């Protein structure tokens, strides 16, 4: 279906909405400690406490296999799991592994995109919290010196 609104206008519209949106202060404060953690284990501990982490195939985690630019790597996490209130992206090898936390309303569509930094090749993790359970999926992202392409 073709509408009068191109994707370009849609993206511009989104940006305008984002400017008006504001972060709930409490959620921001809660995540601060997790952003300072320097190990994935500590990140998980601060964010999810003692909750068990369950591997899930219901999470779509999009990330390039090889980053075009480690400073701005597009990442998307989406899931059909219901009642999602938190989504987090973690890069194991980064000095501070937690890249992003999204606190969303329980009835929101769980589909978030952002840009993250990836310092070197790493396992990347996407966590999804829903109704007291935490689900996770992993990917590998490679950061390499360029050149030598055939």
């Amino acid at each position, binding site marked *: 279906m073709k509408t009068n609104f191109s994707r370009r206008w849609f993206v511009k519209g989104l940006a305008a909405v984002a400017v008006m949106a504001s972060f709930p202060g409490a959620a921001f404060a809660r995540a601060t400690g997790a952003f300072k953690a320097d190990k994935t284990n500590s990140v998980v501990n601060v964010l999810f406490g003692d909750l068990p982490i369950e591997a899930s195939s219901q999470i779509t985690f999009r990330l390039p296999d090889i980053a*075009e630019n480690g400073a701005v790597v597009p990442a998307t996490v989406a899931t059909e799991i219901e009642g999602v209130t938190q989504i987090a992206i973690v890069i194991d090898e980064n000095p501070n592994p937690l890249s992003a936390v999204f606190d969303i309303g329980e009835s929101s569509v769980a589909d978030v995109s952002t840009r993250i930094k990836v310092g070197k090749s790493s396992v990347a993790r996407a966590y999804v919290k829903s109704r007291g359970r935490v689900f996770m999926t992993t990917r590998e992202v490679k950061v390499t010196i360029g050149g030598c392409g055939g």
Partner: protein
Amino acid sequence: MNRREFLELIAKAGVTASLSGCQTLGDKNGSGLYALSKFGQARVLHITDTHAQLMPVYFREPSVNLGLGSAKGKMPHRVGKNLLSEMTEVNPMLSHAFTYLDFTEAAQRYGKVGGFSHLATLIDKLRGETDGALLLDGGDTWQGSGTALWTRGKDMVGACNLLGVDVMTGHWEFTYDAAEVIANAADFKGEFVAQNIRATEDAMFEGVDVFDEDTGHVFKPYVMKEQNGYRIAVIGQAFPYTPIANPSRFIPDWTFGIQEENLAQLVEDIRGKEKPDAVILLSHNGMDVDLKLASRVPGIDAILGGHTHDGVPVPVVVKNAGGNTIVTNAGSNGKFVGVLDLEFGRAGVVGYRYRLMPVFSNLLDENPAMAKYIRDVRAPYLSTLNEELATSESLLYRRGNFNGTFDQVICDALLEQLDSQISLSPGFRWGTTVLPGDTITMERVLDQTCMTYPETYVREMEGQELKSILESVADNIFTPDPYYQQGGDMVRTGGLGYSCAPRNGFGERISDLRLRDGSLINASQRYKVAGWATVGSKSAGPAVWDVVADHLRDKKEISIDRVETPVLKGITNNPGLA
């Protein structure tokens, strides 16, 4: 040798059994090598990675093309006799075309390969047999020669228009500025397709021109072509790692990647909407990536591949959820034409025949119009191209996982001309071959070096930085998952020896780094290193072809008796190693 002598000679060599009738020998349209019985209802012709070689050249296939893990011993990772054993038909000419075996002697006997005027003759013949055929070009067409660089790829756009290329995709095409790429694609009379190139969101926001405002596709993702009443979808897959393997500064607004999920969706949409009789992916992924892709994305009948320059005589059939997909790779430098004949039933493709035909220039007359076009394109540059720099006593070539002899010439030139201890030269797979006793002209140097970021550098590097560069490049070639490979060969080294254990993990493949005098490289000591083709930012030094040309003018005679190839560890009985 004149044409008649040549034909007598190949007849004596027993080129093919079918030649014994000899009725084709006097046929100006070619020899028995090019005779095909009728098969199916539609024909698709495929050329790729010609690297702007308008004139016939010599090109030696690799003697080292390692496959590791599940790729060990599988195509395309077989060389020499191990490759011939996979072929259904072998004769001396085919053996010469597909392998490095007895290269010099065979090249002297059978002559040069490729050349667009000979290619045109063969393609016209193949088209004539079937009431037309689709001609697809997998890219790496606009780069690789002096004239391509000086005309910013336009000489090749003109040649491809004359050749009648219907659809193309790209890789080195994107080493010109984005605006030049768009202009060349517009001058190209066929369709330039790529499902995996989009404008970045930032660029979309800034208003950069794209093919599709909704999806951000910079080029058409696919095109429908009709052939003898059958509808064939051709999807473009450009080289996914262009902004990593080549400078992103030329195409800052575009983002690439394999985009497997999008491709799968596109195939599904095309199957649903267009009701095609066949779906073909014209790919510049490289063979290993194509093989993995074929196992995961259903609905593609054939992946006609390039990038890795593998001359694969027999397609690989890959099973997936939708059935089978055949995967091919069609060599480089205009040396081969892939001929895919398709047979259709009620539910699409029910049979196929594939031949990878070597283009022996001596067997094919020049197409007069193409020959004139090429003469005109080259005329203003002939005095530069034909400058005789030195003679070579050795066979000079590049292709292979590690240093070839021409790489050694380049590395030696960097060492001597730029007064450095160590030199590094990229493991590109393009670059033609010089026979022993032949003159090295400027044109042959440009074959090995011609590109839009040729600047050299000289800088100090710590031993650990050198190791880390080698580790990083080794991982790009030898990491087991093809989606994390980039498809080039190992960086070439001058003045630096090392051991390489390809099967080890990241950071553990490279050891025992030594200077040419045998002394060990110290991790924290600084060394003076020269190199070229930096991807990050433009280097300050002279173009590498001038450095190499000066070296050759100084030497006048070149003899390579030692190639700085690493000591291999952990590689045993590998059919990809001669």
